């Protein structure tokens, strides 16, 4: 976390009441100035990403995507693209629909019986509804908030996605190169290469989360969805995972949902700010944090609410 020059504005929390948006403290020369001051603390934080991006290629796109739970809209009319070569950060206050948006990209919202969807999602220009859901999820990996390795060995965790159900099961020897490659890409191979048969649940929290990333990478997805991947981890593990995200973004399109604005600023090339189901602002990270267009975004990134 970078040093904050200004003390953060006071958050007022009213229990059992409509969410109250607290206006940022007014100064004589207007709100914009205030926001710039507040955001300058954020902008001076060390960034993980390099200023220059590699090749950018569209992998996923949503068109007027809407998700409702039992008729109550959670995501409204969202159109955005997910590009390989850059990290898309989704920010916004709790309950704003960013996790729902993320879970719709691999159709995990289908698990919720009351969820309905409007609009379309495209993966490499193909409608995801035309794909078998298991096929889609092989192309779009996901890592969750809580590290959740399966109760089996490190090796079996990574090999889990590679093993097909039913008849011909590939042997361990055949899987080994793929498992090691995935662990290597997740930066975990050095730490576990002698203990591949150990239970995965004995690893530390940060290692478990990298194992979950390795598990997703093993099936070679084109898109990786990260749902607050560091919120259960300590700062050191968080930093390792952020480095990893930076390394991975050139081969994989990455979407990261985070509550941590500093983290979004550190790792995201492009940022989407969501509020009450709307994608309020979507653009270059520097622009969203440095010169937000919408008032809500300005308030949120300056720490006015959330």
């Amino acid at each position, binding site marked *: 976390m970078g040093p904050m020059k200004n003390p953060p504005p006071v958050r007022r929390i009213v229990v059992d009441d409509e969410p109250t948006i607290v206006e940022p403290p007014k100064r004589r020369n207007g709100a914009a100035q205030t926001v710039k001051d507040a955001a300058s603390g954020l902008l001076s934080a060390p960034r993980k990403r390099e200023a220059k991006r590699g090749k950018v290629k569209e992998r996923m796109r949503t068109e007027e995507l809407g998700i409702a739970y039992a008729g109550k809209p959670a995501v409204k009319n969202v159109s955005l693209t997910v590009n390989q070569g850059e990290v898309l950060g989704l920010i916004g206050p709790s309950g704003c629909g960013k996790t729902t948006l993320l879970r719709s990209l*691999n159709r*995990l919202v289908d*698990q919720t019986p009351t969820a309905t969807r409007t609009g379309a999602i495209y993966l490499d220009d193909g409608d995801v509804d035309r794909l078998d*859901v*298991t*096929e*889609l*999820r*092989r192309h779009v*990996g*996901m890592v*969750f*908030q*809580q*590290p*959740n390795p*399966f*109760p*089996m060995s490190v090796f079996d965790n990574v090999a*889990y*996605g590679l093993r097909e*159900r039913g008849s011909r099961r590939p042997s361990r020897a055949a899987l080994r190169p793929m498992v090691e490659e995935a662990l290597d890409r997740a930066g975990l191979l050095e730490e576990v290469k002698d203990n591949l048969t150990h239970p995965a*649940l004995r690893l530390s*929290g940060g290692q478990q989360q990298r194992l*979950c990333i390795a*598990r*997703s990478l093993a*099936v070679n997805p084109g898109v990786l969805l990260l749902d607050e991947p560091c919120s*259960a981890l300590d700062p050191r593990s968080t930093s390792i995972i952020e480095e990893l995200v930076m390394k991975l973004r050139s081969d994989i399109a990455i979407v990261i949902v985070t509550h941590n604005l500093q983290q979004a600023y550190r790792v995201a090339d492009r940022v989407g700010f969501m509020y009450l189901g709307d994608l309020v602002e979507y653009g270059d990270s520097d622009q969203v944090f440095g010169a937000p267009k919408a008032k809500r975004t300005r308030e949120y990134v300056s720490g006015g609410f959330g």
Partner: protein
Amino acid sequence: MRRSRRPQLSNLPRPRLPRRNREVLSDEEIVPWSIGDRIGLAAAWFSGLLLCAIAASIVLYMLIRGLQYVQLSALFEHPVVQSTTTITGTGGGYLDPIEGTLILTALGTLIALPIGVGIAVWLSEYARPAGLARAVESGVEIVAGTPTIVLAIFGLLIFSKSAFGFLSFTAEGGAVFGRSFFIAGMMMSVIALPLIVGATREALQSIPAHVREASYALGKDKISTIRRVLLPASRKGIATGTTLGMGRIAGDTAIVILLLGATLTLEKQGTTPVVSTLKGTGSTLTSYVYGNSPAGEGNSPAKAYAAAFILLMIVILMNFVVDLMSRRRSDPWAR
């Protein structure tokens, strides 16, 4: 109960009494326990201690009596049968009852385990339609609450039908007795079932939703998620339920007396090696104790004490194993 305002032993109010004048103390300074609370606390202490005393006296009494009469050699000797139609036997050892207990426990568990795990998986992972799920749940509860003697008489009624003759001891003329290890084992599985369902279901439900989702997110369907992730993760719960069920089976008497046939030794039916025993009749430690106790026909308390001691040891051992397993059990994803 941590937030209960009732005073507990650890936080008894300790009013500081000024030495001089007790009369001037106001009610705010001394909060005396009401008489009801005092009686309640005493009753709680008394019941806890009483239970310990009962458990200790059972174990100690059986230990003294059992060790007095138990002979190692008797564990490996067949009982001496005076008449093939009674479960009493004054001579010999208790090899047959021990074998009977082990066979019946194994058989009951083998039948109950897959069915119980299946019911638990369905209840925890599918449970649609909701009405059917409620019906299954109450079914499990009813079975759990049914006295075993009722189950036994029900089993006798069903399995005495000639259609089930292939399962049981049959007379020369073709009459179906409805008594055999098969039939007793099946009814025994019914009493172990609710315990297995309960423990497995609890274990499955303690697995966080995101673990299931992680498997779906890797392109796996529900079946392989259950098979490869959820069942391995609930292994300890399944084992706990199974062991509890085994204890119930080993300790049950009513089903044995009604459905295992009133023979002291293992009587085989037919010639096929294993099937002949399972179709045949026999006894268990529980029926042996019953038959030889002063209440039974045998009236041979020494034998009864010894057999009861062995049974108690088996059941205590099982409970001990359960305790070990549940103590190690923890939620690996909780952080």
